Every structure is written in structure tokens, then in C-alpha cells.
């Protein structure tokens, strides 16, 4: 957070000048500028933190704001040279989708971070011990159903689940919550009903299927999971702090941390949205089995917010309802953005094992629910 207080004075100065300048220049020029910013950013980043860490070991404290300031200055100074190199519509649409995913997800991320900080600081662990059944096998479905109360998309549920684990909730129950919350809350179900006006059973199928998969994953974790796979980042300092101080430091840490992974996921999703061809979908739709697999993979790659994915699914008119259901169940549980955020919150070892298992379980759940209900 030293970043903020120290970099703020030099930061806004270049910013305030740039948009004014960019407005007067023409469209193509702005793009070059964009790409340039992109490049400089990428070139500088590896150097930045490493340099920061090294000088920190020497005991110099002002480095991370300094690096940020240098970075901003470099971007402003070197905007010219790559003009025209990347003024392609691919880059433009990449940038737009990238920024859109981040802007759209940040409010939900902040909501989740606030909630998780509140859980971590103000709710005593004994509360969860009383609220959840003591037997983990029973706690799983209860936690899964509790997902109904978290209104928002999947970005909010990752930090909240992280806080639950730190607060002593059985990981199995926290996992059930993590998976069910983005898919079965009222906002998402309403959106699904609106997107499928002629197939109301779709809402029921989504609710049932998601809950089923969430519980299955919870129980699976309980049977096979090992605690050393799960590494929740230790919040180092809690003694000698006031509650407000702990609250804000938790908010800050989670935002910076999960936010960074969110950016990583957004970059991947934007790349696929801008580059992947849409034509192969048409050929995939012909075969029912391939169709389900194709839409599941698509859900992972697109990383659409769970509040909006129903509309996208509805527009994939050439696919069967079961394939669309797979899209709706897989999407909120595992996608590129979520994978990056889970890797950040629970550790890479966890995410690497958890993601494929969830993917398989979600597809199985979708097929099962689809066979029964649709």
C-alpha cells in the first residue's frame, strides 16, 4: 500500500495530461499508444518487482512507488516508437474485452473482499462451528445451499471461500460454497429465467445441477482431499492491531492479490475471445456428445460472468439444451479467470488438482441433470 500514498502525487500528473492529448489525436493513434503502453508495461514488469525485492533487501524502502512512477513515466515518454505497429482491430478488441472483464469484475471482487474481510475479522470462529453441522458430510450440502445468499458472480465467492477456510470451516464445506454460490443465487437464476423464456425447466436444472456438482465436489474433497494441497495465504499480522486495522489490511491484501490474478485471467479470456474462431462451433453442434464437450470448454475459455452467461448460452441456438446446461454449470464453477484466482487464493497445487476434477464433475452433473429434467 506504500504504492498508493507515495505514487499518488507523481501518478496523476501524467494521467491528467494523457487523456487530453489522446482526445485530440485520432483513433489509430490512440491504439498505437495502447499497444505501446502494453509493451512497455510488459517489458518493465519483470524488472520492476525483482528490482524492488533486491533493493528492499538492502533496506531501501521507497522502491515500489518509485518503480511504479518510473513505469508510468516510461510509458508516457516512449509512446511514439511503435506507432502503427499494432493498430489492428484484433488488438483493439482484445483491449476492450480485457478492460471490460476487469471493470465488470472489480465491483464484485470488492464486494467479495469486503465480505471476506468482515468474516475474517468480525465473525468469531465459534459462529461457524455452531452454524454448520459438525459432521462434514452434512455441512457440505448446508454450505452449498448457503450459496444462495451471496448475490454476485464468481469473483466474489473466491475470497469469501478463502476467508471461510481461514476461519476454521471444513474445506469440504467451503468448496461446496465456492462452487454453488455463483450459480444458484437469485440474481443469476432470474437472469437464466429471462434468457430462456420458453424453457423454465432450465432454471430448475441449473439450480439442481449446480448444487449437485457442488456437493459432489465437497464430498470428494472430504474423501480424497489432503490439507497440504490447500494453502491459504497466511495473514501474518493480527496481534497488536485494532479490528479496523486488521479489516482494512485484509481488504487491501485480498484486493491486490485476487485482483492481480483476475487480470491474468482476463488477459487469457480476452485473447480467446479476440482470436479463437467462431466457425468450429457450428461443426461441433452436430454431434451431441461433442456439443456438450465443446460448450463446456467454451465456458472455461470465455470466462463470462455468471450473471450474463445465460444470455450467451441462449444465443447458441444450434446446440441442444443439455449442452447449454453444461455451459451454464461449468462456467461459474471453473474458468480461466477463476482458475487464476483460485491458484492465488488456495495455492497452485490445489488449483491444478481441483480444476480438472471440477470440470469433469460439472460435465457429469450437467449430463445427469439434463437427462432427468430436460
Amino acid at each position: 500500500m506504500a504504492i498508493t500514498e507515495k505514487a499518488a502525487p507523481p501518478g496523476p500528473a501524467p494521467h491528467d495530461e494523457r487523456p487530453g492529448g489522446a482526445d485530440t489525436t485520432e483513433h489509430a493513434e490512440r491504439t498505437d499508444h495502447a499497444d505501446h503502453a502494453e509493451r512497455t508495461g510488459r517489458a518493465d514488469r519483470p524488472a520492476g518487482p525483482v528490482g524492488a525485492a533486491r533493493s528492499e533487501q538492502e533496506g531501501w524502502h521507497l522502491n515500489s512507488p518509485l518503480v511504479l512512477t518510473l513505469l508510468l513515466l516510461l510509458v508516457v515518454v516512449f509512446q511514439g516508437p511503435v506507432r502503427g505497429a499494432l493498430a489492428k482491430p484484433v488488438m483493439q478488441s482484445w483491449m476492450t474485452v480485457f478492460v471490460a472483464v476487469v471493470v465488470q469484475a472489480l465491483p464484485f471482487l470488492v464486494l467479495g473482499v469486503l465480505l471476506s474481510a468482515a468474516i475474517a475479522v468480525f465473525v468469531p470462529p465459534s459462529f461457524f462451528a455452531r452454524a454448520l453441522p459438525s459432521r462434514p458430510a452434512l455441512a457440505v450440502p448446508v454450505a452449498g445451499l448457503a450459496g444462495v445468499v451471496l448475490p454476485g458472480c464468481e469473483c466474489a465467492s473466491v475470497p469469501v471461500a478463502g476467508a471461510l477456510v481461514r476461519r476454521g470451516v471444513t474445506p469440504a464445506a467451503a468448496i461446496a460454497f465456492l462452487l454453488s454460490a455463483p450459480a444458484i443465487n437469485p440474481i443469476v437464476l432470474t437472469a437464466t429465467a429471462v434468457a430462456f423464456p420458453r424453457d423454465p425447466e432450465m432454471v430448475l436444472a441449473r439450480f439442481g445441477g449446480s448444487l449437485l456438482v457442488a456437493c459432489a465436489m465437497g464430498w470428494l474433497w472430504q474423501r480424497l482431499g489432503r490439507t497440504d494441497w490447500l494453502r491459504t495465504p497466511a495473514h501474518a499480522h493480527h496481534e497488536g492491531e485494532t479490528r479496523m486495522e486488521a479489516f482494512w489490511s485484509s481488504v487491501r491484501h485480498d484486493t491486490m492479490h485476487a485482483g492481480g490474478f483476475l487480470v491474468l485471467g482476463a488477459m487469457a479470456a480476452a485473447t480467446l475471445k479476440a482470436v479463437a474462431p467462431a466457425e468450429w462451433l457450428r461443426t461441433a453442434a452436430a454431434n451431441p456428445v461433442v456439443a456438450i464437450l465443446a460448450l463446456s470448454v467454451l465456458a472455461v475459455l470465455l470466462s463470462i460472468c455468471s450473471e450474463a452467461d445465460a444470455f450467451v448460452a441462449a444465443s447458441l441456438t444450434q446446440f441442444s439444451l443439455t449442452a447449454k446446461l453444461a455451459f451454464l454449470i461449468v462456467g461459474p464453477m471453473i474458468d480461466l479467470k477463476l482458475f487464476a484466482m483460485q491458484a492465488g487464493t488456495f495455492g497452485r497445487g490445489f488449483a491444478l488438482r481441483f480444476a480438472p476434477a471440477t470440470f469433469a464433475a460439472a460435465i457429469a452433473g450437467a449430463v445427469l441433470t439434463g437427462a432427468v429434467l430436460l
Partner: protein
Amino acid sequence: MFLVGAALLHAGLTDLYLRYVKAGLQPLILAAGAVLIVAALATAWYEWRARTRTRTTSGDDHTHDHDQTHDHDQTHDHDQTHDHAHPEPRISWLLVLPLLALILVAPPALGSYSAVRAGTALQQPYGYMKLPKSDPIPINLVDYAGRAVYDHGRSFGGRSVRITGFVALDKSGAPYLVRMALNCCAADAQPVKVALTGKIPPVLQPDAWLQVTGTYTARVTHDPVNNGPIPYLNVTQAKPIPVPSDPYDESWNN
């Protein structure tokens, strides 16, 4: 983090955010921006206070921090070893990227490139609102497409319509007027296309916004990408207009 909050506020207070997300998210974006700024200020204040405190007492909590370095995961050792001095993890440097993109560049809303690559997302409307009595009828592009395909243009009663959208040319060079329909953010934006026929302007620049007046024709084609229906509009007049403040169609959000 202060910068991210400020950037969010900036985007939320101007119409910039409309290029990326739906209008309904504005209060959330503003709230998130405010929270981030408050969090930044709070941390700054606590850090300042902690520093003045450690100057008077001798800070021994660094030993405590070093106990936490039980793994040497690249992304984490930084924030865990130096938790008190500089708590931001290395991964959070990525947050600088969208910041630069948003403030310095402000990428434009999705245009013809994305529109041509995706199939038309026209869906059958649940019902039709009453149209104004004027001639030409000012009507939403998505609304026109819905009425033309599923209502066979009955509600127009032979009057002409006026629609707004941007130009996109497909591989064969056929012109379409397109509006991207949005549900949440630009990542889920999908095009709704209307093909143009009749008095088309001789030079069509992709991504140029046009206000087109024309009459309904029964002709319907199918999108080569997803086989969705694309109605035609018989153009009588077209004039260029500036990009509207909300470039997306949000009629599905209600």
C-alpha cells in the same frame, strides 16, 4: 490501489464505462472505486501510524513474519517475507495493466471486427411495444430486426423506420448495420445484424455509425457464422452520426 479506485471512479463518472459494461453497473463501479480509495487511505494511515510507533518502540515483529515463509512459491515469498514493509504481492503488479489501458488508452467499444466474427444473436421478442405514430418511426435496431423476422413487419404498417448502428462488411463485402447487444460487459456482447439493400451510400467505412432511414422488406438472409436470421432493410437515406454515448444495445437487460 488508490489509482485503481480513482480510475474506476473516473470511468464511472464519465460515460467511459458504457464502452465496457452495462449502464446498471454504474453504482457498483462507483461504490467499488470509493471502497478502494478508502482502503488505500486507511492502509496508508495505519502504515504511517505503525511507522511512528516502531520508531519509538523497537519493532520485533519481523521475526514473526519470517516464520511464514514455509514455501517458496514465486508469487508469494515477496509479500510474506516483507509483510510489514511492502505487503503488496508481486502478482498485484498486473493491476497496473488495466489501469494503463483504461486511463491512457481507453480502448473503443467493440466494433465491426467482433461483429463479423460472431453470429447474429437475434432472439424472438416476448412481445411488441406499441410504436409511435410518426413516419419514419424511430426504432431500436434490435427491435426492428425482431419485428422484421418474427412479426414479418406487420407493425410497421408500410411506414418507414429509422435505425442507428455501425457499419460492418462481411467477407464478401456485403454491408450490415450492426448493434452489439450487451448483458453484462463487453465480453458477452453479441451482434444483432440488419443487412442493407436499396440506396446504400457509395463509400462505407467499417465502424462508422450511421442513422439509416428505410422501409421493411420481406427478404431475410442467414448469418454464415451461426445460421441466425438477418432481416433486410431497404435503405432510402443514410447519414453519418457520432458514436452514441452508450454504444451497446441493452434492451435485453430489463
